[in-house]
């Protein structure tokens, strides 16, 4: 089946061409739009997050500098004596607590030796010695200081805000403890989406706010980041060396306001984005972290939608490509077959024509010698007319022989005439035809073969039929074919073929009925199909009835068939009668 393979590969090629041609731009556009959409969406999202983080950085810085400001006001407004009066200090604390709702836990004054000389608050920390405390050492080096969160003497997380002031040549420190819970809520309130949250770390990687276990686990990751980027912040971060105020509480003047680190990280299969910005002059960092799936939720939805559209579109393109290609290929196959059939038909007609020409040539050549023989016999007859010498019986015998020559000459003439009229059968010219003459001619041609097959040819021709317009040679071809098929159907066992011509409903009908084997329905349905044959390979082309059908259809007629297995087959040929020709 080389052909089937050819059409299959043709179909495959068509499908792949259509798919490639339509998918390439689709995929390119999808990729391009997807990429630029994703980039711009991510950029926007990150920008929004950055803005939020900046705002919060500002809030926190403002919160811290505010607290520092109160202490500064206190230290500048009152003398050391006043501040070390614990009753006075307690009053001031009460005012602050009243105004700021418990942000200030306690107040204390620490002298340069690290001894807390005055204290107001809930803890019993009078005369506490801070000389060894890390915050005290740092605080003494600066004009103001905000410590990291630590447990300290009270064993609970807190941090210290302190101002160094000089009183009569001696430094002292006014310090306040800031409630961790209040500070923490400031950061905890930064929540975006489901997983976006903020926290604060110091430069050593210690969390300055409450964090969940998941964030806790990210410590290493942020530590590494801090170490990588920490150097930058160190330069102006501490005033220990220069002595200038290290903490500019105006955010907008901060040299770090633009330092915002953004990036992506991955932990335990969850991708997240982070935004990092320095706080407290770079001693702390505010970190915002959100799962990517959460941060880019809309992007994911859009991506999913695009993918779905792409898949659906792709599927429909593929299905369409396959269906259309199949249809096209089957059309091509059909037209190829038709062409092949036409070729066969042309070859068949050509063969018939050349056989016909040959026969006509021979018939013509034989005509003349036969005519001469007949005439010579006639001449002998003429000469013998006056013969008296010859014995009467001999004369009779010679005359009988001459008659025989004449008769046989006539027979030859008939044969050549038949051959010649058969030879003309490939002539498609349409003329006025008496159908009965055509049928008689075909019957006489078929006589020899039917005698051989022991088949009786019966005719039942209506003599009053109108003439029709048709090509006699084509009609001959049709009926010769039908009668040959009937003869084949009967075989050598003998039977009858009846040819009937009649008029029915303004149409001329010719029935060719045989008493042959008949055909089952399955075969009956296909007999007009080209190349369909029940004859063994090489015996039939499967074209006979297809050509007949084509000829009759072309004339505007029709062929139908009735058949019963074991009873026989009748073919009905309907021929159109010209208008006005019906009597």
């Amino acid at each position, binding site marked *: 089946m080389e052909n089937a393979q050819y059409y299959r590969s043709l179909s495959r090629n068509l499908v792949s061409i259509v798919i490639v041609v339509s998918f390439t731009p689709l995929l390119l556009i999808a990729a391009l739009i997807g990429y630029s959409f994703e980039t711009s969406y991510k950029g926007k999202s990150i920008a929004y997050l950055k803005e939020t983080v900046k705002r919060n950085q500002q809030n926190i810085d403002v919160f811290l500098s505010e607290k520092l400001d109160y202490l500064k006001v206190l230290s500048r407004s009152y003398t050391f004596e006043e501040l070390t009066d614990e009753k006075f200090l307690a009053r001031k604390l009460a005012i602050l607590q009243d105004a700021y709702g418990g942000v200030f836990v306690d107040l204390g004054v620490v002298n340069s030796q690290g001894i807390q000389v005055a204290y107001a608050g809930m803890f019993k920390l009078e005369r506490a010695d801070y000389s060894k405390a890390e915050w005290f050492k740092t605080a003494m080096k600066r004009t103001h200081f905000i410590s990291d969160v630590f447990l300290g003497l009270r064993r609970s997380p807190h941090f210290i805000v302190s101002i160094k002031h000089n009183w009569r040549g001696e430094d002292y420190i006014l310090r306040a403890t800031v409630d961790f819970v209040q500070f923490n809520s400031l950061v905890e309130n930064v929540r975006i989406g489901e997983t976006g949250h903020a926290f604060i770390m110091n430069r050593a990687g210690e969390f300055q706010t409450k964090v969940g276990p998941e964030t806790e686990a990210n410590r290493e990751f942020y530590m590494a980041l801090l170490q990588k980027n920490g150097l930058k912040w160190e330069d102006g971060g501490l005033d220990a060396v220069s002595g200038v105020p290290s903490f500019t509480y105006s955010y907008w003047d901060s040299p770090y306001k633009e330092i915002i680190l953004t990036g992506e990280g991955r932990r335990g299969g969850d991708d997240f984005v982070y935004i990092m910005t320095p706080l407290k002059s770079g001693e702390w960092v505010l970190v915002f972290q959100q799962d990517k799936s959460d941060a880019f939720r809309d992007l994911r939805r859009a991506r999913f939608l695009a993918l779905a559209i792409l898949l659906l579109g792709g599927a429909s393109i593929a299905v369409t490509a396959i269906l259309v290609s199949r249809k096209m290929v089957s059309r091509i196959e059909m037209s190829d077959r038709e062409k092949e059939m036409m070729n066969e038909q042309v070859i068949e007609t050509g063969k018939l024509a050349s056989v016909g020409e040959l026969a006509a040539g021979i018939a013509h050549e034989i005509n*003349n010698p036969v005519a*001469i023989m007949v005439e010579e016999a006639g001449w002998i007859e003429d000469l013998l007319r006056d013969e008296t010498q010859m014995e009467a019986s001999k004369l009779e015998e010679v005359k009988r022989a001459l008659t025989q020559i004449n008769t046989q000459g006539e027979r030859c003439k008939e044969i050549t*005439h038949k051959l*010649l009229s058969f030879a*003309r059968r490939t002539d498609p010219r349409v003329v006025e035809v008496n159908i009965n003459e055509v049928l008689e001619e075909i019957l006489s041609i078929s006589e020899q073969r039917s005698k051989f097959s022991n088949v009786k040819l019966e005719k039942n021709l209506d003599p009053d039929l109108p003439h029709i317009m048709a090509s006699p040679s084509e009609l001959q071809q049709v009926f010769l074919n039908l009668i040959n098929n009937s003869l084949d159907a009967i075989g050598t066992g003998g039977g009858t073929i009846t040819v009937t011509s009649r008029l029915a409903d303004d149409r001329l009908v010719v029935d060719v009925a045989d008493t042959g084997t008949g055909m089952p329905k399955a075969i009956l349905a296909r007999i007009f199909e080209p190349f369909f044959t029940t004859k063994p390979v090489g015996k039939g082309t499967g074209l006979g009835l297809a050509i007949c059908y084509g000829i009759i259809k072309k004339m505007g007629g029709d062929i139908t068939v009735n058949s019963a297995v074991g009873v026989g087959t009748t073919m009905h040929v309907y021929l159109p009668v010209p208008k006005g020709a019906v009597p």
Partner: protein
Amino acid sequence: MNATADERMEKLKVLLVDDEKGYAEVLAKRMALRGIAVSVALSGTEAIRMLRGEQFDAAVLDLKLEDMDGIEILKIFKKMDPAMPVIMVTGHGSETAARQGMEFGAFDYLMKPCNLNVLMEKIRQACHR
């Protein structure tokens, strides 16, 4: 047929044009026996030459000749002697040519090989119109 009937008929002069020599000769002999003076022409050119020199009562013309087309010869005959009837003889299957010949003024046509009696009858009809 009998000789007296033939003799009653005045001696007709007929030009027989056929390139099959054997056929033309035997036909001529048989027609002569029936009282017709037959001149045989074996080609179109010969026929035209003979018609130029002589007058014939009728012509029997085979439409299929080797040198010239039968219809052309007929046209020439009709030009040379419009009164002379021409009986055409054609092979089977060339009825179209014969019918065409009728349009150009031929008297009638016969299928070849033709029966002598029929041919004689046609000649008589043609000459005694």
